[in-house]
């Protein structure tokens, strides 16, 4: 009997309309686990290099983690992966909510989807039974209506629906996938991959209990974490203010991305802060499966018809539609957030792509003749909303911006390329590497393009007296480093934390629960894994799971022709910050490149950033090592 997981992966071939179940061994699951580990395995095994990400040969994987579904705060996450249509690289994005635990309760540890349905369909998984249903009447509809119809059709309001809106159907390159209308596999354009397969939704109902190996230990860990939520300032802050607390904090530190990363300080930051949200639009605090932190928000605005069922803007959205575009109206931002939720567009890439266009407009590279008569200037909230609609529908100028800022700049030309701030084609998230140097490594080295969820940020582990720093010392990080220093210590800290966070992804753990971002100690995370699965495991083994997942993704990219030249940053990040307490700070390109090479060496990758044959074998990836130097042009 398996504890904590099912030993079953569902395979769906939409072209052949074939459904199969693969039984996997305990050793397989313990090696690849879930999340990026499972995704990397199937993408390398089932996909040839060079395929069109929006064609039928792309493979789309839904992968909860080993701890997903455990009765413990934060154990709710699942990842979706495929070749990304935005980056042409390894694509992966996590979401919280309830869908991941429901899939495991329905009897599956993952879903692997290939081919393309001949017409729009959705999958319905009900306690192990899997069927393909016609979605012709749902295609073109927004997410709220689709969820209601599916639940009503199958007469079960508890069905969890992962779906795409019209943005995914129209193959917007940064379209995302939503579940429960308010949780998102946001980045990398995986919603477009789903749309390219004519797959509208995956509905899941799972009523079985996941067997737990040690109920007593699990219960102790759960009670202990629950008791810390209101005592620990990190978790209490997430409950009281959500991620929105970072708006004023980052602004006061001069690292709030403002005007397309020109500045680090927004003079109207208070208008888009947690305080403004609480006073003007907040109606509820909500959470994910089994989690007491309840960091999610639900908001309402009568002026713009914003409904609580679509949740509320997170920090990334407040910044990407707020300070980045110089918009100071929180109700406009809430409306923009809801539109993206209904159409399923990534709010980060949408905000960044519109900010790119705003800077082009300011520089007279674009005029109203190009933008369908819309005055696309910084600060114009109505223009923001109008452009989101056009992007989702690929109408007029929206069709250009739907390609993402990098491709849009290639279409527009005229020097616009310098305003498109991307890594591997994915737009920067709302964190400033000029104030947190490990983000320079995270953005550049991440296999999925610029991503802020690669490792704990410098400011979480900057001081020896800090709770978060003391709690990560069991990983072997014994000295802190200043946020704006590149040193071997900084690189090593980043390397260790990125492997540990990669393990969180494979295990389905929310980053807002364990240290250093929150309060669950490393020992309790390891014990939770033992209690749920019955494995006698350790932080060492689990760290290796995380490292393995990173290396699988990196080998996928190597096979596609990616190497050190794509681990690069936009030019703007090597210019000084222009405003705020950290004004004058910039990254040194020379120091950054040196730090990148040190990172490669520490990870046992060659100078091109490709894992060595020895590293592959050390991680038990001999099946890839056997092809080394043959299939991967190394």
């Amino acid at each position: 009997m398996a504890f904590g997981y099912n030993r079953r992966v569902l395979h769906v071939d939409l072209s052949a309309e074939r459904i199969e179940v693969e039984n996997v061994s305990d050793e397989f699951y313990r090696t690849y686990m879930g999340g990026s580990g499972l995704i990397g395995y199937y993408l390398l095994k089932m996909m040839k290099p060079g395929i069109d990400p929006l064609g039928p040969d792309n493979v789309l994987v839904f992968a909860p983690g080993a701890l997903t579904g455990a009765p413990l705060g934060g154990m709710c996450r699942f990842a979706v992966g495929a070749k990304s249509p935005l980056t042409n690289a390894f694509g992966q994005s996590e979401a919280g909510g309830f869908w991941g635990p429901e899939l495991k309760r329905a009897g599956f540890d993952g879903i692997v989807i290939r081919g393309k349905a001949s017409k729009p369909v959705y999958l319905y998984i009900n306690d192990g039974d899997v069927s393909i249903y016609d979605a012709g009447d749902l295609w073109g509809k927004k997410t709220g209506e689709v969820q209601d119809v599916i639940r009503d059709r199958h007469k079960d309001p508890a069905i969890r629906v992962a779906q795409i809106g019209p943005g995914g159907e129209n193959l917007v390159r940064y379209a995302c996938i939503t579940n429960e209308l308010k949780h998102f596999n946001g980045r990398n354009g995986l919603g477009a991959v789903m749309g390219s397969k004519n797959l509208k939704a995956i509905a899941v109902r799972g009523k079985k209990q996941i067997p737990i190996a040690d109920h007593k230990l699990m219960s102790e860990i759960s009670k202990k974490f629950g008791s810390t939520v209101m005592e620990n300032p990190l978790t209490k802050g997430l409950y009281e203010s959500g991620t929105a607390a970072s708006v004023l904090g980052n602004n006061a530190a001069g690292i709030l991305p403002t005007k397309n990363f020109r500045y680090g300080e927004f003079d109207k930051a208070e208008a888009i802060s947690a305080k403004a949200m609480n006073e003007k639009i907040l109606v509820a605090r909500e959470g994910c499966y089994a989690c007491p932190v309840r960091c999610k928000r639900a908001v309402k605005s009568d002026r713009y018809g914003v409904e609580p069922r679509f949740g509320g803007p997170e920090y990334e959205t407040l910044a990407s539609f707020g300070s980045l575009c110089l918009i100071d109206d929180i109700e406009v931002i809430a409306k923009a957030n809801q539109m993206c939720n209904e159409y399923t567009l990534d709010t980060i890439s949408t905000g960044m792509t519109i900010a790119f266009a705003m800077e082009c407009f300011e520089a007279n590279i674009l005029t109203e003749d190009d933008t369908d008569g819309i005055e696309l200037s910084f600060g114009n909230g109505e223009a923001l909303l109008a452009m989101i609609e056009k992007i989702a529908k690929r109408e007029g100028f929206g069709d250009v911006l739907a390609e993402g800022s990098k491709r849009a700049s290639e279409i527009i030309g005229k020097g616009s390329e310098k305003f498109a701030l991307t890594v591997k084609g994915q737009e920067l998230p709302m964190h400033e590497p000029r104030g947190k140097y490990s983000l320079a490594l995270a953005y550049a080295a991440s296999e999925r393009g610029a991503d802020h969820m690669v490792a704990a940020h410098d400011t979480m582990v900057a001081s020896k007296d800090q709770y978060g720093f003391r709690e990560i010392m069991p990983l072997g990080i014994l000295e802190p480093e200043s946020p704006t220093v590149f040193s071997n210590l900084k690189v090593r800290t980043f390397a260790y934390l990125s492997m540990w966070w990669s393990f969180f992804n494979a295990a389905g753990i929310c980053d807002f629960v364990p240290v250093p971002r929150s309060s669950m100690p490393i020992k309790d995370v390891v014990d939770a894994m033992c209690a749920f699965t019955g494995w006698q495991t350790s932080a060492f083994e689990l760290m290796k799971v995380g490292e393995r997942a990173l290396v699988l993704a990196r080998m996928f990219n190597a096979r596609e022709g990616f190497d050190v030249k794509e681990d690069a940053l936009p030019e703007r990040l090597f210019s000084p910050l222009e405003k705020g307490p950290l004004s004058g700070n910039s990254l040194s390109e020379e120091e950054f490149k040196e730090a990148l090479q040190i990172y490669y060496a520490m990870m046992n990758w060659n100078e091109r950033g490709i894992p060595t044959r020895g590293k592959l074998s050390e991680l038990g990836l001999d099946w890839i090592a056997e092809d080394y130097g043959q299939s991967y042009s190394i």
Partner: protein
Amino acid sequence: MAKVIVFSGDRLTEHIVELDRAVTLGYILNKVNISREEVGFAICRSKYICLDDLVNPEDEVRIFPPLGGG
């Protein structure tokens, strides 16, 4: 005098600390009644500073709890 701006609970609070000489950040924390455990990082003169770094009488110091992403 040194201006000390503390960010906590989504609020900025300003303190004035009278100084006749340079003092450490640790000294400043005692003066504004903030424990070391509450501090994530501090900024002064456009750079991050540690507990043992000196703050001059005319400086502005900004003190933050740990701030992360999301």
